[in-house]
């Protein structure tokens, strides 16, 4: 496509009014970045620690349970504890199996439009808040490497869907109590809620909304995709809520499984 020649040239360098200060805001604009940094840093520190633990991620038949941490599912290493394996092992992988899979959910969240808003503001100060000065002298946005890689978001979305299916399967398996039959425990509920929140986060994703219907030129010629788009649009409006809820809950799920597996907690049977 040929460039459009403008009749009016953009004049640069005009004198701006107002005082030359970073911001005149009087409200607590710094609070949101502080909260974001606190939560995301805590999550990164915890998940890194948990990923390298390589133990206490599965509660198996010995405890009459079948609970696996979402950080370790599917367990693809050849060092998986008995019962936790996915049936497919990458031989020769001696490190924690979590390291094999976490790149996908990490990539999904790293390229997520909502998280981009949050960490650009909180960590990169670009800008720290609306109408507060950018923390950098120059700015090229997402036009260059590595930030241009955010355009791969939809592929991480696809990978995220695969993980959602696997974690849903884990949640269903959690109803199984080896040696006792079937039942519902606190762990079952935790894994179910975790899977539900991850589905909500994925289905409310902007790329999902685009791929399912938003990308069409005419809704009237794509009735089914239009209906899906209409269903996803209110979910998309809650994407921020699902992003935080699913992030925090996936960590709490790992904490719960870890505490049960290490014997600190008992996974109570509800019915």
């Amino acid at each position, binding site marked *: *496509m*040929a*460039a*459009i*020649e*403008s*009749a*009016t*040239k*953009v*004049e*640069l*360098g*005009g*004198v*701006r*009014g*107002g*005082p030359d200060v970073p*911001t*005149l*805001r*009087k*409200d607590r604009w710094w609070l949101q970045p502080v909260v974001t940094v606190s939560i995301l840093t805590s999550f990164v520190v915890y998940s890194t620690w948990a990923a390298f633990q390589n133990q206490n991620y599965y509660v198996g038949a010995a405890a009459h349970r079948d609970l696996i941490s979402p950080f370790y599912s599917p367990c693809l290493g050849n060092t998986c504890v008995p019962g936790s394996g996915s049936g497919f092992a990458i031989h020769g992988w001696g490190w924690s199996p979590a390291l094999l899979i976490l790149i996908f959910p990490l990539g999904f969240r790293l390229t997520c*439009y909502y998280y*981009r*808003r949050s960490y*650009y*503001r909180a960590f990169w100060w*670009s*800008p720290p808040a*609306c*109408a507060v*000065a*950018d923390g950098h002298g*120059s*700015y*090229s*946005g*997402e*036009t260059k490497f590595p*930030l*241009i890689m955010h*355009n*791969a*978001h*939809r592929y991480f979305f696809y990978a995220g869907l695969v993980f959602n299916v696997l974690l849903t399967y884990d949640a269903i398996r959690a109803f199984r109590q080896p040696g006792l039959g079937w039942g519902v425990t606190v762990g079952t509920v935790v894994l179910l809620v975790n899977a539900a929140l991850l589905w909500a986060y994925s289905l409310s994703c*902007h*790329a999902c909304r*685009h*791929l399912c219907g*938003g*990308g069409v*030129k*005419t*809704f*009237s010629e794509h009735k089914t995709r*239009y209906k899906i788009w209409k269903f996803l649009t209110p979910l*998309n*409006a809650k994407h921020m809520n699902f992003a935080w809820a699913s992030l925090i809950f996936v960590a709490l799920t790992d904490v719960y499984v870890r505490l049960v597996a290490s014997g600190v907690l008992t996974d109570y049977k509800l019915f």
Partner: protein
Amino acid sequence: MADVTMRVWRGDASGGDFEDYTVAQNEGEVVLDVIHRIQATEAPDLACRWNCKAGKCGSCAAEINGKPRLMCMTRMDDLPEGPVTVTPMKTFPIIRDLVTDVSFNFAMAERVPALLPPPMPEDGYRMFQEDVERGQEFRKCIECFMCQDVCHVIRDHEENKQYYAGPRFFIRYAELEMHPLDQNDRRDYVRDEMGLGYCNITKCCTEVCPEHIKITDNAIIPLKERVVDANYDPVAWLGRKIRRRTKRTATEAGVQPAP
């Protein structure tokens, strides 16, 4: 009701500073009422733009306590205690006091490739309700340019004005891209010439929009996804190759510059 102190920036391209005015504030008043009272009592030469006083013309956009807002829609009793700071929009060159030169936006408006409909069928064009509704949100824009003002891409980086259309025009591009009769393909254009990649989704434009247009979610991100379709999605690229289609389907993509 008690008096209020207004700290209004006064000046022009040669310089300026804050001036304090202590004036009466009545119940239910908005910032523009108090600015008018200052004009009527203490500073008849205070320059400010206004027209409808109903939040529909966008003329009285300024920065109140550091945030872009319409003066006519900002109630005084919603503001925190203490002096109220009123400054001109920071992103645009100053003319005088609270009045800025927003011609950058008109230059960007001229660069938008116009709607390119197919030849008129014998029975006329037909649009369906769901297609009409899609672009309705974008047409609520009153062109106050507060989204342009708050966007850090040009607010804090003057040099980017050459390559960056800004949120107000991204909603215009989105509206055209979603128009069922439009045959232009602007995806490469918004990426290469209009700087869509400069937007880093911080959503400040959405936060300040007085018409509550979901600029980021409903216009900028869908545009970014369309750019991904055209340039960064190997599956979509392969599909186009197999089906021997251009980026856009049936019609040869072309550009019709604005008159």
